[in-house]
Structures are given as structure tokens and as C-alpha cells.
């Protein structure tokens, strides 16, 4: 039957063709019918869609914008010299804290006699003694050290104090009984203690004493004890104290007295006072206590030395301080110096009347803590502060020439190639107990909120990063996020919506309930929680971006699923689907050839519009600080960075307006293209 039918058709067709040929022969050059194939241009469906699309002016504008955005975001960074995380610096005038001045409150001790031996406990508490002294209005205070040493602090004048100590003269040093050696009887070897001189006679005496099992023996008038430590090992101890007299021999009575008063530190002998001091090596020093001597000169005054290279010793300083309230003149190393009071400060001149140092109340340092300021600067600063104190001002100014720097960060040189100096106005202002010296200087700065310039076309942001570069990279992320999220949404939505619509039944019910649940989920709180969680675990920005996309995709598929289900539900019951079934076409082909193309327009429009809204959502999240994090740039974060106040928004309009325009343009472009595609896909649209 089959073949017969086909043959018949073929025959029929041949007959028709023959007829047609005959007709053609009959009427050569017959009139061309209106619906002649030749006159009707036939386009393939794809080209038809394209043709329709390209007829839509708005769609073309949208497409052009999108192409621009893609080039801008994906190709742009390849040619743009800066990356999104480059931080830019510049040299610029900045009022910097140049130096600080503070009144020295603590006195500093200058040793007069460098050999003076004063315990650190006393040294460290000198200032507190001085403070209490000043508080009580006393002119002198005495203190006692743990070892019984007597000290006293005397006020010599304002801000100058002196520390006096007992003058000690050592009279004797007593070394008590001490182990001199260990003897091993078995190996017959001595191990001598350090500091003992090896004496062969002594050696023999020990050996003979040990062999006779004596517990003591005498040698050269010194008695020794032998103690058996363990088998064959003997400890030989010198039993008679060894005494070194510094001066005259005061006799054994003196020694026994000293030994007796070891722990009391002090004893009297023949009407004189002696101090006993147990040294580290258990020897005992006995010193005679003489009169008091000045050990330290203490002062709050600050030395400002003219020539720093000249190393001025503590001794010199101490002498200079003493001279203030003494003779105003002192000699040091054979030279005579004079100290003169000038206002609130003192100046030290040498013999040729040149100032070598001055004494003031203030410590003036660079803010970094280094003491690199010149004598002149310190003098001027000090002078200004004194004037301020007199006039009771809180701020003042003085001029001082500082090295000049140009805006490229180089020192300006004069004709001779030396560093040029310019008079710089230095402002001194009082802050708490300190004086801060500020001045405008060329400083190496992060170029934050740089105005648009030839180097940075859109300026720089608050982190000193190039805005144009960040716009490009931000566009990349925004577009990638848009595409991936929409892709995820569409994939999940089409699969679930398709199953739901095509198969119906319990699968439909289940999936639609899931969709309902997803519609109920308040996405913003979830995203806020997510953002907080990611912040808490300090996720890296790239990982965070990936999770953000997944979560946005999962939150957004429900709409697509519902759309697809609705479409499929209505299409499934259309007669053409039944007709296709009747022709025996496979189910998969029915779905992909007949159902899908009918869903595609809605899907594409939905996806394209979705792209726009996802970009907006991503920007919103980033703006709220929940989305993509620094240092990754997105358009949202860029706007966020200047949106802290309306003042900032006005001030930094050159940052957020271009970025906002980009978002706007992209979303509008996606909508235009989406509309254009919908119209193009719809064959029922009037051309």
C-alpha cells in the first residue's frame, strides 16, 4: 500500500509537471503572478528574527550600549594601564605635624664623677624624691639605700638639684674561709678553685695530711680544713681569712668587728664610722665613711647644643648646670665657659664668646621622634612658646626656612646645586600640655578623591584607586554576575518548570509548592544574613562573589519556573501538540522542537530583563555592603564609597554620577534588547 501511494504521488507530480511545462510552452513569457517565488524574498527563520530585530531602533541602541559595555568591561582593562587595586600616590602640600615641643618635667641626672656607684633603685626614684621635695617646699631631702648608704638631694636653684652621697674610702678587703681545691685520692689529682695560686708545697702538705687522715693541717701559718666529700674526694678549705689592707693595718680586732657587723653594714671603730659591704664573691669590703660629695647634678633643663657633632659629656653638662647658680662661669678641660641667663633660658658661651648651647624648658623633637632639628629651629620654637606663655596665647606662628620640595617629590636646588630653602610658616599650637608645630610641606600622599585629570580621567576614589579602572573591572563583575545568575535561574527554572508543566500530576503540585515557598522567602533579610555570615567567617572576595551568584540564582528561579510551567501548560493542550503526537514524533522532539521555541521568546525576554534587574540587585547589595567586597570593584560598591552623606555625594559627584550612569545605561540597554528580541521572536508582530 505504502509504496503504491508514494508511486501514485510521484506519477501525479510528473503529470503535473508535464502539464505545467505544456502550459509554459503554451504561454511563453506568461505574466508573473504576484505570489511568484521569485518575487517573494524568503528568509530563514533566524535571519527573519535578526532582520526584525535590526529594524528596531531602540533595540539597536540597546545592543550598541551593551556592546560598548562589554568592550569597556572586558577588553578595556587589557588596554588600560591601571588595575582595579592599584593605589596612586602624589606629592602635595599638606599641613603636617612637623615637630612637637613639651616641657620636660622629669629631671635628668648628669654624673659629675662617672665612677660614682649608686644603686639603680636610687637612680630610678630620684625624680619622685624631687617631686615630693618640690611639693613639700623642702630644700633638701635625705634618703637611705638598702645597703645603708646615705644620700641627700639638695635644691641648688630652680630646676637644678644635686645628689650628694657618702664618700667611702676602702680600708680593707676580707676574704673569708674558702675552698681552694678538690683532691681526688684515687687519681691523685687536684682541681684548683679559680683564683688560687698553685703551690707545690701546699700540694705536698695536703697529700700528706690526707694520707694521715688528718682533718686539718697548717701550712705557712695558714690553717686548712680537709673535708671528705665522697669516697676518695676531699675538699680542701682555707680556714684563715685573707685580709688585704688598703692603708694601714688596723689589726685583727678591727677584722673581727667587721666580720661581726657584716649584716648591720655599719660599725664604729676608734671613733670612726666604717661601712661593711658583702660583695658578690662573698668577700667583705670595709670602708671608712668620710664627708659627703656631690655625685649627680639633676635638672629639668634641656640642653640645646649648637653643634651636634660636638659630643658634650655629662660632666660638662653637670658643670654648666652648677654654674647657673654659682659663679656663672665654669672651667672644663682647661677651658672657661660662661653661663648667662637670657629671659627664661640660659646660654652657654665659650671663651671666644660663641654660643655653644642653650638651656631651655622644652624638648623639641620631630614628630617621628627623631632629634634632627637644628639648634636655630629649636631656639626659635622655644622663643615662640615663651612669647605665647607670656601673652597667654594658644597658638602662634614663626617663620623658618626649610628645604623646598617640588610637586614631583624632588628637593629644589639652587644655582650652586645646593638644596634651596624657603621661609615656611610654622604654626605652634597648644594641645593639652604639648605644643604642636605644624607647617605646610610637600608630602607623599595617597591620592584620595583625586579630581578628574589627564592621568585619572574620572579621578580617584577614597582609597586612591583609579575610578575608570574600577569602573571597567566593576562592569566585568556586574555583567558576569548578571549572566551567571540569570543562567542559573533559567536552567533551574526551565528544568523544574518544564517538568512541572509537561508531566503535571504530583510533580507539578510538589514543584509549584516549592515555588510558592521560594516566593515567600524574603530575599533581602536572607541576603543580609548571608552578608553578615560571610563577613564573620572572613571569606575571600572571590569565593564570596561565587556564593553570592549561587544564592541569587537560587532565590530567583521561582519566577522563571512559574513562567515556563504556565507556558508549557497552555501549549501542551494546544491542538498542534496533539497533532504532533498523532504524527508519531518523539516526545523529546516534541518538547524541544515545538514547546521550547514557543517558550523561548518569553524566556529570552524574561532573561534579558532579568539581567538588568540582577545587575541592579547586585549593585544594591554591594551598595548596602552585603555583596561584593573590597578590593573587588563593582558599580554598587563604588557608589557606596561616596554615599556616606549627602555632602559627600555633592562633593564627589564626579565619582558616582558616571558609575550610576553605567548601571542605568546597562539596565536600560538590556531592557531595550529584551523588548527588541521579544518583538523579533514574535512572528505575529507587524513588521
Amino acid at each position, binding site marked *: 500500500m505504502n509504496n503504491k501511494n508514494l508511486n501514485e*504521488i510521484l506519477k501525479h507530480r510528473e503529470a503535473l509537471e508535464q502539464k505545467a511545462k505544456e502550459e509554459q510552452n503554451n504561454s511563453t513569457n506568461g505574466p508573473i503572478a504576484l*505570489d511568484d517565488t521569485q518575487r517573494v524574498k524568503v528568509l530563514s527563520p533566524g535571519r527573519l528574527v535578526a532582520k526584525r530585530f535590526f529594524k528596531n531602533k531602540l533595540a539597536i541602541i540597546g545592543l550598541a550600549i551593551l556592546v560598548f559595555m562589554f568592550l569597556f568591561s572586558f577588553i578595556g582593562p587589557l588596554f588600560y594601564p591601571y588595575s582595579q587595586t592599584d593605589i596612586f600616590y602624589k606629592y602635595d602640600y599638606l599641613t603636617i605635624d612637623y615637630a612637637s615641643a613639651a616641657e620636660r618635667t622629669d629631671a635628668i641626672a648628669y654624673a659629675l664623677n662617672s665612677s660614682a656607684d649608686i644603686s639603680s633603685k636610687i637612680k630610678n626614684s630620684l625624680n619622685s624624691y624631687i617631686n615630693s621635695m618640690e611639693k613639700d617646699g623642702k630644700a633638701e631631702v635625705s634618703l637611705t639605700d638598702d645597703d645603708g648608704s646615705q644620700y641627700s638631694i639638695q635644691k641648688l636653684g630652680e630646676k637644678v638639684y644635686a645628689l650628694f652621697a657618702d664618700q667611702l674610702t676602702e680600708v680593707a678587703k676580707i676574704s673569708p674561709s674558702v675552698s681552694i681545691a678538690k683532691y681526688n685520692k684515687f687519681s691523685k689529682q687536684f682541681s684548683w678553685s679559680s683564683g688560687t695560686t698553685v703551690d707545690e708545697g701546699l700540694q705536698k702538705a695536703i697529700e700528706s695530711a690526707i694520707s694521715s687522715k688528718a682533718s686539718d693541717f697548717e701550712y705557712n701559718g695558714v690553717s686548712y680544713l680537709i673535708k671528705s666529700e665522697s669516697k676518695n674526694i676531699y675538699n680542701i678549705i682555707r680556714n684563715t681569712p685573707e685580709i688585704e689592707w688598703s692603708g694601714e693595718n688596723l689589726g685583727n680586732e678591727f677584722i673581727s668587728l667587721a666580720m661581726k657587723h657584716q649584716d648591720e653594714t655599719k660599725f664604729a671603730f676608734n671613733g670612726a664610722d666604717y661601712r661593711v659591704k658583702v660583695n658578690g664573691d662573698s668577700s667583705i669590703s670595709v670602708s671608712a665613711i668620710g664627708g659627703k660629695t656631690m655625685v649627680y647634678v639633676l635638672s629639668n633643663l634641656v640642653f640645646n647644643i649648637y653643634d651636634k657633632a660636638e659630643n658634650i659629656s655629662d660632666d660638662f653638662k653637670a658643670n654648666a648646670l652648677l654654674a647657673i647658680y654659682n659663679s656663672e662661669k665654669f672651667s672644663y678641660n682647661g677651658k672657661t665657659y660662661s653661663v648667662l641667663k637670657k629671659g627664661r633660658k640660659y646660654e652657654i658661651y665659650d671663651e671666644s664668646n660663641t654660643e655653644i648651647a642653650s638651656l631651655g624648658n622644652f624638648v623639641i623633637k620631630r614628630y617621628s621622634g627623631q632629634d634632627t632639628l637644628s639648634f636655630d629651629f629649636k631656639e626659635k620654637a622655644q622663643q615662640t612658646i615663651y612669647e605665647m606663655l607670656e601673652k597667654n596665647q594658644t597658638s602662634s606662628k614663626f617663620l623658618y626656612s626649610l628645604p623646598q620640595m617640588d610637586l614631583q617629590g624632588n628637593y629644589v636646588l639652587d644655582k650652586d646645586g645646593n638644596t634651596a630653602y624657603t621661609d615656611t610658616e610654622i604654626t605652634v599650637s597648644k594641645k593639652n600640655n604639648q605644643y604642636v608645630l605644624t607647617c605646610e610641606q610637600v608630602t607623599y600622599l595617597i591620592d584620595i578623591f583625586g579630581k578628574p585629570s589627564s592621568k585619572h580621567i574620572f579621578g580617584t576614589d577614597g582609597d586612591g584607586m583609579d575610578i575608570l579602572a574600577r569602573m571597567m573591572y566593576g562592569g566585568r563583575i556586574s555583567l558576569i554576575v548578571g549572566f551567571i545568575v540569570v543562567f542559573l535561574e533559567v536552567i533551574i527554572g526551565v528544568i523544574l518548570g518544564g517538568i512541572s508543566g509537561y508531566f503535571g500530576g504530583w510533580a507539578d503540585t510538589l514543584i509549584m509548592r516549592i515555588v510558592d515557598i521560594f516566593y515567600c522567602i524574603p530575599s533581602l533579610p536572607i541576603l543580609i544574613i548571608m552578608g553578615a555570615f560571610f563577613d564573620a567567617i572572613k571569606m575571600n572576595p572571590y569565593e564570596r562573589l561565587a556564593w553570592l551568584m549561587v544564592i541569587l540564582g537560587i532565590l530567583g528561579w521561582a519566577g522563571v519556573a512559574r513562567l515556563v510551567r504556565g507556558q508549557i501548560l497552555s501549549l501542551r493542550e494546544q491542538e*498542534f501538540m496533539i*497533532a*504532533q503526537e498523532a504524527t508519531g*514524533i518523539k516526545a523529546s*522532539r516534541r518538547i524541544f522542537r515545538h514547546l521550547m521555541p514557543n517558550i523561548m521568546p518569553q524566556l529570552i525576554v524574561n532573561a534579558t530583563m532579568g539581567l538588568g534587574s540582577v545587575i541592579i540587585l547586585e549593585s544594591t547589595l554591594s551598595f548596602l555592603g552585603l555583596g561584593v567586597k573590597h578590593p573587588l570593584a563593582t558599580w554598587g560598591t563604588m557608589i557606596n564609597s561616596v554615599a556616606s552623606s549627602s555632602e559627600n555625594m555633592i562633593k564627589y559627584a564626579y565619582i558616582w554620577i558616571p558609575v550610576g550612569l553605567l548601571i542605568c545605561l546597562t539596565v536600560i540597554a538590556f531592557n531595550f534588547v529584551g523588548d527588541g528580541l521579544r518583538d523579533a521572536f514574535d512572528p505575529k508582530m507587524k513588521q
Partner: protein
Amino acid sequence: MNDKNTAEQKNEQEYLLEVKNLVKYFPIKSSFFRRTIGNVRAVDNVSFKIKRGQTMSIVGESGCGKSTVGRTILRLLEKTSGEVLFNGQDIFSLSKKELRKLRPKVQIVFQDPYSSLSPRIPVGEIIGEAVREHGIVPPAEYDDYISRIMRACGLQEYHKSRYPHEFSGGQRQRICIARALALNPDFIVCDEPVSALDVSIQAQIINLLKQLQRDFGLTYLFISHDLSVVEHISDTVGVMYLGTMVEYAETDELYSNPLHPYTKALFSAIPIPDPDVKMNRIILSGSLPSPANPPQGCKFHTRCESCMEICSYAPPEYAEIAPGHYCACHLYNDEQRQAKAEEIMANAKKEEKKNGKK
């Protein structure tokens, strides 16, 4: 033996399609638990045969189950019970693969040419898709074949690349017919193929169908409610009412001598194109009962002019009243059938009394 065989073969050859006691119920599900709470008896015990190369029509009111019969025959819907034999082969016993193989042989043309064409696919593809899928012609001849089919259905070759929406209703119906024809079928169910078209186009389509039948020896099951079209095209006609076949006969016989009161009423509605003729129309009272809850006894008795007592109790038997003329009506009962019906009625009455007493 031989004689018998040949007779059977003849029978087989003679009847392309045999429908035996076909029943199709649509379950009514409760909305919440999805339990079946009743059935819509769309097709209730329908039997008929169609001879090879002939056209059988099914007529009846809207909602009487004509289209359901058509779709169930093609197994686009699963039957509830009964048998559909196509070329002696039970369609419902086929596996999915076998059914797919059979599909091209049995085609359908739908009522609405607007919705029965996939809107996003060019016409050539609509017609040719299944041809390619089933390998009706070798791939080399495919293009020419589609063109030939299109020409045979009165379409131009350049229509191939056009979309359905670019065509008028008549052309679309031609496309539908071409789609069915391209699969080289033996049997086409025409489910009201012309009712959506205007009259002039109707004639074209009817003529096309007739021509194709002539040329290719097609067999049609023509479903319609337009009696004049049916008279024009069909060899035999079955009249359906509320899911059951009430009368079946050859066209001439039926049109000249309708037996069933419903058929009479139906035919009396055919307009006669002569203003002077006084039409003797039988106006049926009431409306079509619900197929979910059909009346007891004869389904038509609620609206029947000549309703008897027996009609409301016993369903009439679908019997051959005259040679080739089947009818289901108590008016034409022979003694045997009458006795059977009366017995049923008596039982039913008893039952009623019992129930009443209780």
C-alpha cells in the same frame, strides 16, 4: 476452510477500521484529595466499522462525544474499555514503539486550523518533520516530496518557508491536511475540519478531501455537526447522542429514512434553500443532559417526542433494524427485544417500589 479464510480475509480487507463497544470515561476528581468521584461518560459503548476507501461521518450535537471517539481511535486518549481494530490490529494492545510505527497510517485533521499548527515552525518543516522522522521517503527525495504534497493540497512550493500565521484559515487547513497526507496514511480522522471556515472555503476543503480520497484511496472518519456537508462527503453516517451511537446507516438510507426520533429532529433542522417551503421542524425541548449523570433507560427519553414508559427504564438495544441500518430505539423493537426490555423495566419498577417502601 478455504472459503472461510477468504471470507475473513475479505472482511478484513473490506473494513479498515472496526470499533467495538468503545467506552471512554473521563474521571471527575475531587479537588483536594484527587479521588475519583464520578465519570463523564464521553463515549459509552460505541461500535462501528469503516470500509476501506470510504468515508464514515459521525454527527451529533456539541458535547455528544464525537471528537472523543475520533481521538480515542487514534489512541491520543486511552480507552476505558472496548476494542479498536485497525487493519485487524488492536490499537490499544500495541506497545509504544509499535504505536509509533503505526502513527503515520492513522492521521487526524483538527477543527481549528489556527491552533493546530505550531506557530514558530515554518510550514515546510511542519509538514515534513514527521516524514523525516518516520523515513517515509529517502532523504534525497525529501524536498521534492514535500513540494509535491503541498501542490497536491493546493499549496505553493514557496509557502514552505513561511510561518502558519501568514496564511488564511483555508490555507492553514490545507497545511493540516498536507501534514496528515505527507505521512502517507490509510486513514484520516477529520475532526470537524471545516466548521471553523467560511462556506466558500469549506467547499474547497471538502473537495480537496474528496479529491485526495479519490487519488490516494484514503479512508475518512468525518466528524461534523454540519449535516449538509456530511451528506455531501460520506458513504455511511452514524448519529451520536450523549456518548452513544443512536443510529447508523448508509448516507442515502439515513437521509431518506431516518428512524430514531433524535435523527429525525436533527434532520428537520437542515435548512432548505427555498423560502416557500414550510419547514416542519421538530423542536427538542430541554437541553442536553450532563454526560456525567446521563438519564436512566434510553438516554434520549427526556427530550423524546415519542417517549414511552419503557424508555425511562430500559436502555434500547443498538440493533440492525433494516439491512445496514442500525438504530437504538424502543420504537423499532422486535418481540425478542421488547420482551427483554419489559423484563428490565419490571425489575427496575420492583426495585423502585422496594426503595420507596424503605
